[in-house]
């Protein structure tokens, strides 16, 4: 038997690659994350906010980056390119070339003095050239790994960085490295590049100062950007009053060779317009759309708020012909088509919503790794295997395969992890390392013996704060038995020193006064753990980021503050207690609720990795709504694929299917669920919700009464059995979507309409087809269907948002009357058949199921994931996951990717034998608690329950589920009796800090 390697290489360190890596590393595989730039983060790290929640991009991403950087089973290989790959799936050898950073990453502490002193200023790519950076630099302040590198092109070799670096990390002559790495599978996530707006000469980008790209605009909006979050005209620094967004720049544009839709630009333009208005009062954005493609969850609502709340002007159905500059004012004249004519409007600034194009490395990668690209230059995939490349063993996720937004990308990232994991499931846990620590020293009952280590951080702290004075002061504090100063407390030799001092002085608490615990606490905790101390016997005083750096010109006061901060940290440290992380045994099986495409895919992915699955299906058969789709996707019919899936599920030994079965009750928590169904009681470690959605049953337009009025699915059926008889067909889009009752867009109906229209034309070219629509939302490569329909002579009539077509006629003849926004007048069509594109509706039973699972629904009654952007298949409640249309209407490939993703997320739990709880969690003092239950609703994680005291059933008390508690402490602050405590942040500890901050100190 061929030997497999239990490691995976992930190529590309954007959000996709990071998510894949974390999932795989958490499921027992070693991950090599290869990034071509010096730091991971990709495009998302450049964004200011994300749609549709306006979440701060860096805020939500940074924890993931840090986690990937610190994960002991993820090896970051930055600044590296793939050279070649050999071997077979399961056992590849990949050759990498690592371009030298000219800085020793093991020594660089990221302190930044080198960049401050470097005399060469050059273009800052991260800020899109609107700012300058030095020849030695990190891409952005939160970069992971935080290692500086030298841009040899710009560097003049003056040597100042070498001299200034106290860590001696600069090595000018450091050579490139060649690496050969054995992995079982490869996942590609190198992302995309932006369209080069210069190619659209008519918009004047590159010539007119005030024409910027959307990514440049994004940097303007960012608080860390060149203008500190303000929108300014690059020509003169004035705030623009009127800003125009021009959509589809480099998308849906045959002229530049990109016939696809970039899928994300409509939404990000709306977001940028909203944020620009928020950041800069008085700014009036106008967006020139061809179609507004708000197809995702909450997107339509977001679009509506943009118009109604934020006053964003949206012009539909317009294509901007040209932009001209007024040479005197540098204002811009935007010329666009409207109502069949040409209109002109003057703006202060123009933002070009540039599309996505294939990564510039795509071609090279495809040659070196021997997989195919599609005709657009993206990675070739298939509808039914959206995560596989043409080469077995190499998988793909994110926008490398097609333009897509962050949630889709993240779901795919998890999905690709499932594919890779399935390939090498039998060698799980063979390459990962488990760190061995010495036994913990029992410090209970001991007097506190605190050791204080104060860092100079080169000159970052020492240049402002008188570090020796801090050390001397620390020695005088009660409980402190040892204090010393270090040039870099984080350097590896100091770690040894700390360990030695713990032994020599019998320290049982350690305080490090240096930088921020957010990045460095785990390092020091690991150090003291290696010396036998519990990791929670550690406290940090942040005397750099929050002292020396922000009080650079007041050394005396900064020194005093540093002493205060150390005193506060020591005050808390004295009261620190060792915390135990308890572990919860994990049931290895999975319950999938729903036996449609999502459910079966998820079940098969889990089963492929060798774990048992139960599918609970409400109806008498598997397959779900897939059974009613006929149009070929690529070369295969959906039904054919469905039958194949059903056969696979049947054949899988570890999948148990429970048909005609409904969930009646769910108890337990992550690792140990109990699900009671109509027939059985099943135990599992995780639950995947894949209950799908329902078609809207229209009541409009005499549907159900008039046989000539049918739905698209019915038309599809007619086309399939060749029973369609009509000379003229009218289709009305958005029936039961985007109206007052159902404000959202059902995402898939436009494409369904396109497919049917094309099929009609193909069956009989003479048949006239009229499509009445608000926008045609054929996003991504589906745009080609729209194009094809147009070419086949399908007529498109755009009607206004609030003015649905009227259907009438007298018995014999159907009549459709609609206001055509392009012509600006009413049109009348007399079809033989009227096809209604009906929306998708959430299942009726969602509310009930949600209640049983204790998970939330969105206001549209779809299941609500933990986080719209970065946790698209998770619920806030741990151990429960989400896939398919239960989350939101979606296409087959999207469902498959998401279901695979849910399987991977499930795997991060069930692949473990036990789960470790958080150390910092809530704990209840049962003697004081009277079970009032005030804390219960404060818990977002449903970790608190009021229960009866077993010895005294009269009395109530509160129980904290350690497996669910995330340790935010909200319940503690809410508890009226003081019975609730947060470990590691006990009230007594925090109060000790408060008292210490306010009491005396030196002068």
């Amino acid at each position, binding site marked *: 038997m061929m030997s497999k390697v239990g490691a995976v290489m992930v190529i590309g360190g954007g959000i996709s690659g990071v998510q894949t890596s974390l999932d795989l590393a958490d499921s027992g595989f070693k991950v090599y994350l290869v990034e071509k730039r010096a730091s991971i983060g990709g495009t998302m790290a450049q964004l*200011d906010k994300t749609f549709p*929640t*306006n*979440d*701060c*991009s*860096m*805020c939500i991403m*940074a*924890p993931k980056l840090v986690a990937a950087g610190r994960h002991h089973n993820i090896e970051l290989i930055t600044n590296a390119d793939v050279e070649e790959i050999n071997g077979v799936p399961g056992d590849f050898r990949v050759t990498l070339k690592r371009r030298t950073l000219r800085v020793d990453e093991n020594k660089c502490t990221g302190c*930044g003095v080198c960049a401050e002193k470097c005399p060469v200023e050059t273009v800052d790519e991260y800020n899109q050239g609107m700012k300058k950076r030095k020849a030695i630099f990190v891409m952005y*302040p*939160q970069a992971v790994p935080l290692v500086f590198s030298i841009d040899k092109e710009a560097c003049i070799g003056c040597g100042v960085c070498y001299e200034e670096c106290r860590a001696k990390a600069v090595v000018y002559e450091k050579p490139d490295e060649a690496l050969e790495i054995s992995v079982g599978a490869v996942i590609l996530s190198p992302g995309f590049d932006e369209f080069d707006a210069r190619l659209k000469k008519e918009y004047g980008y590159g010539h007119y100062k005030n024409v910027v790209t959307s990514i440049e605009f994004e940097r303007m909006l960012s*608080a*860390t950007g060149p203008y*500190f979050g303000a929108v300014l005209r690059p020509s003169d620094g004035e705030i623009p009053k009127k800003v125009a967004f021009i959509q589809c720049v480099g998308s849906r544009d045959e002229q530049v060779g990109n016939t696809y839709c970039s899928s994300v630009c409509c939404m990000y333009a709306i977001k940028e317009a909203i944020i620009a208005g928020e950041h800069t009062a008085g700014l009036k954005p106008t967006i020139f759309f061809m179609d507004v493609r708000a197809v995702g969850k909450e997107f339509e609502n977001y679009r509506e708020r943009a118009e109604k709340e934020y006053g964003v002007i949206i012009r539909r159905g317009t294509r901007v012909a040209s932009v001209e500059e007024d040479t005197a004012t540098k204002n811009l004249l935007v010329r666009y088509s409207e109502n069949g004519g040409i209109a002109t409007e003057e703006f202060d600034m123009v933002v070009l919503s540039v599309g996505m194009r294939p990564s510039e490395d795509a071609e090279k990668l495809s040659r070196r790794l021997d997989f195919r690209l599609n005709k657009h230059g993206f990675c070739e995939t298939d509808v039914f295997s959206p995560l596989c490349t043409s080469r077995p063993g190499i998988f793909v996720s994110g926008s490398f395969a097609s333009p897509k937004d962050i949630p889709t990308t993240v779901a795919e990232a998890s999905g690709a992890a499932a594919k890779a994991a399935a390939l090498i499931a039998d060698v799980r846990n063979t390459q990962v390392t488990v760190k061995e620590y010495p036994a913990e020293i029992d410090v209970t009952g001991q007097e506190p013996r605190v050791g204080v280590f104060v860092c100079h951080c080169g000159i970052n702290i020492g240049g402002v704060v008188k570090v020796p004075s801090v050390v001397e002061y620390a020695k005088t504090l009660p409980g402190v038995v040892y204090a010393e100063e270090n040039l870099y407390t984080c350097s590896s030799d100091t770690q040894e020193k700390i360990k030695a001092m713990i032994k020599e002085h019998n320290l049982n608490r350690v305080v490090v006064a240096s930088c*921020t*615990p*957010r990045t460095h606490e785990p390092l020091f905790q690991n150090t003291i753990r290696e010396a036998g101390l519990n990791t929670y016997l550690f406290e940090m005083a*942040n005397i*750099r*980021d*929050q*002292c020396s*750096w*922000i*009080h*650079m*010109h*007041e050394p005396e*006061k*900064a020194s*005093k*503050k540093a002493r*205060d*901060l150390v005193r*506060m940290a020591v005050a808390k440290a004295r009261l620190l207690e060792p915390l135990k992380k308890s572990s919860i045994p994990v049931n290895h099986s999975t319950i999938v609720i729903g036996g449609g495409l999502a459910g079966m895919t998820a079940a098969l992915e889990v089963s492929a990795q060798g774990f048992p699955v139960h599918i609970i299906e409400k109806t008498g058969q598997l397959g779900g709504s897939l059974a009613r789709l006929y149009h070929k996707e690529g070369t295969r019919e959906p039904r054919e694929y469905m039958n194949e899936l059903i056969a696979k599920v049947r054949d899988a030994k570890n999948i148990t299917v429970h048909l005609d079965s409904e969930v009646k009750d769910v108890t337990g928590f992550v690792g140990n669920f109990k699900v009671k169904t109509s027939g059985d009681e099943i135990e599992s470690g995780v639950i995947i919700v894949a209950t799908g959605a329902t078609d809207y049953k229209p009541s409009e337009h005499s549907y159900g009464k008039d046989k000539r009025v049918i739905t698209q699915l019915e038309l599809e059926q007619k086309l399939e059995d060749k029973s369609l008889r009509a000379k003229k067909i009218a289709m009305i889009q958005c029936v039961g979507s985007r109206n007052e009752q159902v404000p959202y867009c059902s995402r898939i109906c436009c494409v369904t309409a396109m497919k049917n229209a094309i099929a009609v034309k193909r069956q009989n070219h003479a048949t006239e087809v009229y499509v009445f629509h608000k926008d045609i939302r054929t996003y991504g490569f589906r745009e080609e269907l729209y194009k094809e329909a147009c070419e086949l002579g399908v007529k498109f009539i755009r009607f206004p948002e609030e003015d649905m077509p009227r259907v009438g006629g007298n018995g014999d003849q159907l009549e459709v009357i609609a206001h055509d926004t392009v012509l600006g007048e009413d049109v009348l069509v007399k079809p033989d058949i009227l096809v209604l594109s009906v929306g998708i509706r959430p299942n009726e039973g969602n509310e009930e199921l949600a209640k049983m699972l204790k998970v939330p629904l969105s206001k549209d009654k779809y299941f609500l994931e*933990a986080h719209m952007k970065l946790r698209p298949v998770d619920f*806030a409640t741990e151990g429960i996951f989400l896939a398919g249309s239960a989350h939101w209407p979606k296409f087959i490939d999207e469902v498959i990717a998401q279901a695979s993703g849910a399987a991977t997320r499930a795997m991060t739990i069930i692949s473990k034998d036990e789960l470790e709880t958080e150390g*910092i969690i809530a704990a209840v003092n049962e003697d004081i608690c009277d079970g009032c239950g005030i804390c219960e609703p404060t818990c*977002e*994680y449903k970790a608190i329950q009021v229960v009866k005291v077993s010895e005294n059933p009269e009395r109530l008390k509160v129980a904290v589920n350690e497996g669910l508690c*995330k*340790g*935010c*402490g*909200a319940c*503690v*602050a*809410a508890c009226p009796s003081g019975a609730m405590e*947060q470990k590691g*942040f006990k*009230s007594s500890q*925090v*109060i000790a*800090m*408060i*008292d210490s*901050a*306010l009491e005396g100190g030196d002068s």
Partner: protein
Amino acid sequence: MSATEAKHEIGSAGEEWDPKIIVFCCNWCSYAGADLAGVSRLQMPTDFRVIRTMCSARVDPEFVLRAFAKGADGVLVAGCHPADCHYIGGNYRTRRRIAMLRMLLEQYGFDPDRLKLEWISASEGEKFQKTIREFTEKIREIGPNPITED
């Protein structure tokens, strides 16, 4: 700009009284924002001392009252923006709690402006600086905590 010049500037800013300000920062957003202020070398008054909590919702009313009782001249609570909370909804609770505390302070005869709540995200280093500057200024205006004087 020489060192002497710098000294002169400091000397001219009211020397007689340095307010004592306690700042509670949530670990995920505001503390990170404060760090970013540092990374960006944004300068601000030195009079505040930060205490980190995991979530702004952890800030027990007792902490705030204790701080005032011990002589703090101002307390600032900083958390994630609404809807950005790392713990989903913690900061909504914070908002209500601080509103309640401000009422309480007023009843005790304290200027409620001594307690402030601010949303500061991880990328808002400059906002952290601005908040600290303005709050310090405000506290200087209000004057020392009456408890210390009584």
